[in-house]
């Protein structure tokens, strides 16, 4: 009998992290879930990107600068799980699990948090050829089905990733402001998609969760390779020769290149005001989310 993914997350998240998770929710509500609604919440200065229709003209006249009126979120927000299901996502994550498992778990945690708040959860998953769309649903059963649909998408011989298509789909599908949780891996050509990311960030609140790839010449890879029959690339089947792991200069060069790529990606994402989260295993997902919320709370 399949275990409910939501139940799994609840068992893991709620008990020890109740207080922090509450803080997380509070943070979320302040940052994302404020917006259009019936109940007046507060007034604040207009910032570029805010809806012009929200400007409280009287208050602005009093203050001498644009002030917008915010309302507590009356109805639920839509959380969009935007998941890259390309073949590389079925490879091994830095923690040793499959990256798809980490992506699944990230989606489940996010969905759980959303569901516990009464938000709707939608799924947009795809790669170069395939595309899965589950419209926003609020019931636990439906969300569970959404997560199952995502789980069923993973395949070792899946088509390659295509982040561009996924981002364009998200832009065209969701017009109202949502929380978009983009789950993909680190090695995407981020600069090529910078324009789309910028548009997405303007329209939605975006959280980018990247799953770290296993370093094929690292010590974790060496352990795994000893247990099994070696290391091979999922895309071209290239067997990574073991001697590379024993070359110090190679390991160092790979580490340097990875750090460079990470710095570049982080610079781009922060330039576009995208919240970024890097996880290596399922264990890191919840602490990383909590950590993100804490940072965010301080920032706001």
């Amino acid at each position, binding site marked *: 009998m399949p275990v409910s993914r939501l139940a799994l997350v609840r068992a893991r998240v709620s008990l020890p992290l109740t207080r922090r998770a509450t803080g997380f929710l509070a943070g979320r509500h302040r940052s994302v879930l404020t917006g259009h609604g019936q109940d007046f919440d507060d007034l604040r200065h207009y910032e570029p990107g805010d809806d012009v229709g929200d400007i409280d003209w009287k208050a602005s006249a009093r203050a001498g600068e644009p002030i917008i009126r915010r309302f507590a979120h009356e109805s639920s927000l839509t959380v969009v799980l935007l998941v890259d299901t390309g073949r590389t996502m079925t490879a091994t994550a830095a923690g040793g699990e499959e990256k798809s498992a980490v992506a699944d778990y990230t989606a489940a945690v996010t969905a759980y948090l959303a569901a516990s708040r009464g938000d709707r959860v939608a799924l947009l998953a795809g790669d170069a050829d395939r595309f899965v769309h589950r419209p926003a649903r609020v019931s636990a059963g439906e969300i569970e089905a959404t997560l199952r649909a995502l789980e069923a998408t993973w395949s070792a011989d899946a088509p390659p990733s295509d982040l561009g298509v996924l981002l364009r789909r998200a832009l065209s599908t969701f017009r109202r402001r949502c929380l978009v949780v983009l789950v993909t*891996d680190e090695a995407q050509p981020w600069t090529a998609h910078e324009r789309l990311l910028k548009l997405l960030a303007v329209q939605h609140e975006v959280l980018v969760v990247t799953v770290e790839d296993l370093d*094929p010449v690292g010590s974790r890879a060496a352990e795994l390779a000893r247990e*099994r029959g070696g290391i091979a690339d999922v*895309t071209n089947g290239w067997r990574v020769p*073991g*001697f*590379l792991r024993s*070359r110090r200069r*190679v390991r160092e*060069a790979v580490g340097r290149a990875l750090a460079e790529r990470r710095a570049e990606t982080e610079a781009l994402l922060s330039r576009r005001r995208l919240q970024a989260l890097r996880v290596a295993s399922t264990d890191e997902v919840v602490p990383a989310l909590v950590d993100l919320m804490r940072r965010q709370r301080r920032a706001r």
Partner: protein
Amino acid sequence: MSPEQTILWPWVAAGVIAVALVWCVVAVVVARRGRPADDVVRVAHTEHLTRLPEVRRALRWHRIAHGLGALVVLAAVVATSLLAGRPVEREVVAERLATRDIVLCLDVSGSMLPYDAAVLSVYAELTEHFAGERIALVVFDSTARTVFPLTDDYTLVGDQLAAGAEAVGIDLDRLGDKTLDEMSDGELAQVQELLAFTAGTTSLADSSLIGDGLATCALQFDEQGSERSRSILLATDNFVGEDPVYALGEAAELVASRDITLYGLYGGPTDRVGGTEESEYRSVVSEHGGLYFTLDDPGAVDALVADVLAQQAVELDADAESVLHDVPGRWYAALLLGTVLLIAAAWRVRP
């Protein structure tokens, strides 16, 4: 004939290569089966890895090392197979070895003893000109003794001739007057040697039975069934004792009837050259068409050698004997080098 290098057992060499190939195939199959393609750690984005110059350099070196390793293995396998196939040098030995027989027939009677050392040195000089001919030495006084039978062992021939020359080189003029008691140990040893060399050549009654000695020499030849060049080189002074069974002339007849060439070497004192005995000896030898020399004839050896070699050496119908020498040398070196390189490579280059 120049030596020729061949592989003695080419099928063994082929077998080793076949085994190596089978082993290769088995190894590949086992490697494939033992490591199913799906039981690997699957990783993504190795294109970032292979783009790094450090990685490319490492891969290139690794490929070169593997290529060299394969070459070394190939060389070692080839060397092994050739070694297993037994590389030999085939030398076909000419069978003129046994096609000429020469019996050196030496008179060691008392009258000849002072001259025998010189005769033996002529014999020794003579044998140096031969290669492959069989030589025997017979010494006789009243009876004959075979010092060594027909042989092509030139080391033995040389040793025996030298030992004989030493034995007969004894200073008889000085020792002749002494009794055994008066002699020193060295002199006694010399006498002993002489007695040993001439042992069995004297019977109680007679001495210097030259005809009998020559006849005995004529009986030295074996291989009577085959067409061979046979020669006797007789050295005597023809001072005949009493009552031989064969007179010199009769013995020469016997020699001639057995199709043996008789060469004469006069070994007596030079002042007797032209005397009765010497003349008889010369005429008997000349009658049967043999060459005749005196001991001091400087051209004797060359003329004898030329005449013996001029006789048609008849090829024996026996198979040409081929002598095989194993020559593993360079293949062994190649195998050794290959093994050392392989061990070094296995230690240095990991999979």
